[in-house]
């Protein structure tokens, strides 16, 4: 995929997100759905951390997602 197209797709995605924000205020009593466990950004932190650790040791870009963490030469 050409680089320009990649960039364009990324900006369209961002635009889509921000267009959705258009000053729509959600009062607290309408946030019941957002409070559901399945609406958490990461409902299974343990599972996610285990996958991230493996991706970080298998891919050049993986380590960014997990912040500071040890673990070096292991499972190369």
């Amino acid at each position, binding site marked *: 995929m050409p680089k320009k197209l990649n960039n364009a797709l990324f900006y369209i995605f961002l635009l889509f997100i921000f267009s959705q924000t258009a000053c729509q205020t959600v009062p607290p009593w*309408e*946030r019941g759905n*957002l409070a559901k*466990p*399945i609406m958490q950004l990461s409902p*299974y932190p343990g599972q996610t951390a285990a996958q991230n650790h493996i991706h970080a040791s298998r*891919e050049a*870009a993986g380590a960014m997602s997990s912040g500071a963490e040890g*673990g070096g030469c292991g499972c190369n």
Partner: protein
Amino acid sequence: MAATKLSSAAPENRLSPDFSRAMQALCLSAMALPGMLGQARADSDQEAGYQYSHYEEGNREIYTDFSATLKGDKTNSIGKVGNLFHPITVDSEHGFFRFRPTEEVRFAVDYKQDLWSGASPISTLPASAGGNNPHLVNGIMTGATPLLKRNTATKTNVISGFFTDQGQPLLETLATAKGKPLQFSNADRLQQTLGYASPEMRNQIDFKLGYDWRQTSLDWRAGASIERDYTSRYSDLNGRLDFNQKMSTLNFGLGYTNSDTHAILDEGSSMHTSTAGYPGQYGYIADGQTQSLLITGNRQDGNLHLGLSHILNKNALATAGFAYTYSAGYLSNAYKDVSVFLLTPDWQKSFGLPSTAFSNIQYAASGVSALEKRPDQRNQLSWDGSYTHYLEPLDASAQLRYNFFHDDWGINAHTFDGEWRQSLPAGWTMTPHVRYYSQSAASFYAPYLFSTDPSGNFKDLAHRVFSSDQRLAAFGALSGGVILSKRIADGLDIDLGFEYYTRASALQITGAGSGDYMNYHYYTGNAGIRANLEQLSHVGAGFDADDNALGWLNSLFGAGQNSSPSQRPIAPAAPAGVQFSRMLQQSGAYALGYRFLHDNQDGAMLHGSQAVNILSPSFINKACPLTANAKTGACSLPPSGNSHNVHQLELLYAPTAWLNLLIMPQFVSSYQNSDMIGSTPRTLAHIETRDYQYGGGLGDLGSYALLKLWSGGGQQLHIGQGFTAPTGAIDNKSGIPNNYYAYNLQAGSGTWDYKPSLTYSGNFDAWYWGGQVNGTVRMQNHNDLNYRLGDIVQGSAWGGYQWNRWLSGTLRAVYTAQSRISGAHPLNVSANPKVAADNIYYYGSNDAPQNYGGDFADLGFGLSVTIPDGKFAGHKLSFEWLQPVYTYFNGYQLDRTGALAASWSFGF
């Protein structure tokens, strides 16, 4: 905690139904907010949990050149051979505990342990170079040794080869001898040279302290990760700021990691690895017999990230984030090499050809395998966005994520991720997900290099950076899996996860990956349990709520708003080392428990109960009896220290008051260090400590039924019937493919084992007492590796005194008898079958099955703390130290120096 604050601020009287509904929604929404920070609400503030993960890679393909055995046409002499290396497997466990000492303060501790072993790539070579050096018998590989410089075709210890002027490898199919004609085929292919790593262990622990204000929070975390060859210390500071009526949340963080490499390349790799062109940071260590390459280095990583999450509408939220990491120092991997071919000028001359012949072909008569050398700085940037939407009619949510990564090593990477979270009846949630990842190669990535240094010293590499690490190549990866989650009881969840991952050159986003020979796949399985300590109601070991001796603990945990005193149970606190001692008295009740057992054997070498000298001939002849025609090497690596850790998880359920069911998964890790005796005769021996050997993984899974036989007058008798399934590995190996680790470094028994027990307990006033007889009977003649561990019988008796309502102490006497191992696993044999019969011997005394088992007596000193009230009422912590008082080994073993048992239990 925002929920509490909001609700307490509301008027307490004149509650209309509408108002209640609004309050409910308000509380729910307030609870939702912290979850938007990336610290999910599932990542609760009052929680304990445990997770086990297993990772397993598929086998890599190995090719070799069969031209020596082929007659006639040799243009297709490269063929695949079976790969007998175990692929990489990793067993991990993760335990965590989080609680709020006060309303505003959060504290968390996380512990992780990885045990891994298997074959991983070291370098890349054309298959004709024979990098994996397979030993073939009738075309079937019987073993392999990575020989990074060996050329099997020419039986020389250097790599050589023909290449096109574009650098593609060519197979010379007729002869390379002087004066013979040359004929080239492009049938050669690249492959990775695999090195086998013995089991290694990583331990990581970190602590987090958090503070919450009304709209902000701050978290500070610090920890360390320790491996034999790599140590990392890290710390980070993360903050959160809610604004815009809590519609938006800003996250920010700063992190710092400082890591040291201390890698000793084993003898095999050291011999074949060149440090040509490598600027320092290595040296050699000699241990009396061998010389190994030591590589040291330090790296530092600084990281900052910013993230914004925003509620779009009542069903959707989105996030956007940015992260930057700066790394400096030794960023290479000490175990990765690059093959470097030294091009021969006017090579045609050495083949008796005119210099104009094959002008588009290059030839390298020699080469080396050089340590990889990455730049000493790296700047990494990443941008990410996500969108999460709730679909009301389906009670499901969908999440899409995208991440773009860029660094100054020339790597660009895209990650697309999609997840569907479906709520199901009966507390189940199913979450299938799919992920696509693609990266371009680092600018200095190359499968192999050429040197044209006329001096032959590879000086032209001195100022270059280079790596053949597959992780810096261009590739794509597709993975998918599912997480199944079930709420067993209020506040108790189990998660099961599975993921399959396939990496392929062709999956690279432009279709231009670095090579199919690096393709592989893996799968992972995770099982976790999480207990929300606030939500679980408790019936455990409650006490009369009249006195309050534990005031400081109560104030720490918040005075008893949740305490629910219940009937004082029989056997209030059996010592921590006693299993199967507890029965739930109420039908429908559950209990969770965790037990940690640690034992040490690092005393003198004993024969029976007498100390012996490891240099004496009788030790060599009897502790490591010679088999077949073995002449040297027996007992050259006797153990100097052994340690075992067992983590047991207990899930206890009472269908009725007289029957309890117990499931007990366990995770085992062991390590051993050895004395290396360096010369014969032994009187001149040079003794060195060798590196640790690690073994372990998931242990044998236990399933038990506890039946109450009789109870009355504060006394109870119950019987335990159960067995363990052979889920623990018994094939942990060292670097030599046929060399199994000693029996006590394996994770399981390999057999189905019957484990009966009979427990008596009683109490009167503040005194309590008990006794137990238990056994382990192997129900099979032998396991898959042709041996059977000895049966065990154990008896113990204890007495205890409850000093006050939260503290008690125990004294216990234990007697244990275990028989010898019968049978034996395959011995350490040479890879070459012709010499195997002459070379069978035991390296260490614990490799010999006749040295196992014995008679032992111990005294146990125990303490038990039961939290009487407050948020954590009913939690019980017990510790016991077992001091050996009598030891008689069946053969030769290291003296026992004590054992520790710690347990936590909680009933609800």
